[in-house]
């Protein structure tokens, strides 16, 4: 065999292997989506959005869980989003080259990949034990801690995309950095930052482990932030493991609901980003 033949074979082999790897990955992704659709669609009905989680054996919906998920996700992003944005602003603008920034960036990356159950336990220690009971606010704080590093990262990346010339122009006009940031840089990076927040929402809306230790669950309608609150992930977790068929059916529907909303959020984020980059170039 000539050397060229060998090289060509190696090339085909590498190409083939990566193709197979892609196919395997996609197969499982679509298998999950398919199973979810097949089982979840059956339970999709109007009552899903109007009735509370039922006791075993009777019919019901997921209203309290949907409400709880929305509330805790919103409160979580309201706490974690601004903190993450400001930290990202510090990293991208004020402390771009400082040693402190390098440390913060590293710690943020660690936090970004920390197992969410650890964060759940941390908030359990921090709030649940002190308060003496599970509560929605504890769940929201746990979600905020998960949303924070995502927001930090995306904010920093998006602010770095703003052309240096634009920042220089404002600085040369005699603007203090904070004025430059709020009047020029934030508006220029607005859609990017919003996208980052959407991605953070997508990330926390499916978290189960941290809620298990903090918000727990509630079979009834509750709007009190200081009381345990129902939420989709934990309901899915409990109902899916139960022996009751009607609970299992609801779990499938809830899972489909979460997946679809995350899908919508991710697609929205993607569209926003591509239109942003398309407009720039």
């Amino acid at each position, binding site marked *: 065999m000539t050397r060229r033949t060998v090289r060509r074979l190696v090339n085909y082999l590498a190409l083939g292997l990566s193709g197979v790897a892609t196919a395997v990955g996609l197969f499982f992704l679509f298998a999950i989506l398919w199973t979810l659709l097949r089982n979840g669609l059956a339970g999709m009905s109007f009552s899903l959005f109007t009735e509370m989680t039922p006791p075993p054996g009777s019919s019901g919906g997921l209203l309290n869980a949907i409400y709880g998920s929305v509330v805790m996700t919103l409160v979580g992003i309201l706490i974690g989003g601004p903190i993450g944005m400001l930290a990202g602003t510090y990293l991208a603008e004020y402390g771009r080259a400082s040693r402190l920034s390098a440390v913060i960036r590293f710690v943020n990356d660690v936090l970004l990949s920390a197992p969410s159950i650890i964060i759940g336990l941390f908030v359990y220690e921090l709030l649940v034990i002190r308060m003496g009971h599970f509560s929605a606010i504890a769940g929201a704080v746990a979600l905020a801690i998960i949303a924070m590093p995502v927001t930090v990262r995306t904010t920093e990346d998006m602010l770095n995309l703003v052309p240096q010339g634009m920042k*220089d122009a404002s600085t*040369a006009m005699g603007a*203090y950095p904070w004025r430059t940031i709020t009047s020029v840089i934030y508006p*220029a990076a607005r859609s990017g930052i919003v996208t980052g927040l959407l991605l953070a929402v997508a990330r926390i809306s499916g978290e189960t482990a941290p809620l298990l230790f903090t918000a727990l669950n509630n079979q009834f309608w509750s709007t009190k932030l200081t009381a345990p609150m129902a939420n989709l992930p934990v309901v899915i977790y409990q109902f899916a493991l139960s022996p009751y068929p009607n609970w299992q059916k609801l779990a499938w529907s809830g899972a489909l609901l979460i997946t679809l909303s995350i899908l919508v959020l991710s697609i929205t984020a993607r569209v926003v980003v591509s239109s942003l980059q398309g407009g720039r170039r």
Partner: protein
Amino acid sequence: MANTADGQSGAGRAPPSPATTAGDPARDTAGGQPRFSLRPEVGLKKPSGRVAAAGAGEASVEVSDGATVPDPVFSCHDVNVFYGAKQALKNVSVDVGRRQVLAMIGPSGCGKSTFLRCLNRMNDTIPGARVTGTIRLDGRDIHDPALDVVQLRARVGMVFQKPNPFPKSIYDNVAYGPRIHGLARSRTQLDDIVCSSLTRAGLWDEVKDRLASPGTGLSGGQQQRLCIARTIAVQPEVILMDEPCSALDPVATAKIEDLIDQLRGSYAIVIVTHSMQQAARVSQRTAYFHLGELVEVGETDRVFTNPRHRLTEDYITGRFG
């Protein structure tokens, strides 16, 4: 504009040697010096009587070294700039006169933009940059801790190489400076500032019907004039221009040059340019930089027709750079 190098350039195309300029007394002195030596003591900064006397034939009215002017707006003395360990600017001393244009020319990386950024302390924004020496604006040291850098930048405006309007409306672009410095007490006053700034920048007639549309939607030349309008809206004393035409076509360039000529009536202007023709057209004084040193500065006509230093002559006659 350039020197009459015709007779010499043919002969001097080969490795330029002092002999090519022999016979001209003005250049003889320069030719006698080691060719690329830039040590200050060889008479670059403060040409001794020898050099000054040599050029005295044509420029007898000139001050001895051309670096100082009476009643300067900026007076710089021994300015050094370091980026980390690298020295980008070496012992530059030069004045900027009122109501005139000072052009800074020289090959890329010679430090002319670095010097420009010293004058409004934009080098402060670069991590690791260090500036030494004294720079006085109206007699006051701009590095004085009591002087707010924001105040300095309101008095010393800057126009950049690439037009960089904010992603805001044309109106808001021009109103940006007056707003952050609180220059307008009412909406009508702000309207007046915006209108007069755009008029002075020669842009009013082109944009008066679309002040609310984004500044980024204008053409390159219009964007650059918008940036000039934005700069003069805060009534600075000095305008710094860093190659303001290098991203523009000849027509837009001509407009900007006309504008510079008009603005000279009210402001001191320091312009960095790669085009020697532009320097000759718009400036009254020209400074030539080479490898971080100020080689020569003087009246533009004198520098282009009778350069005192060999490096200046080589650059303006196109032998390098």
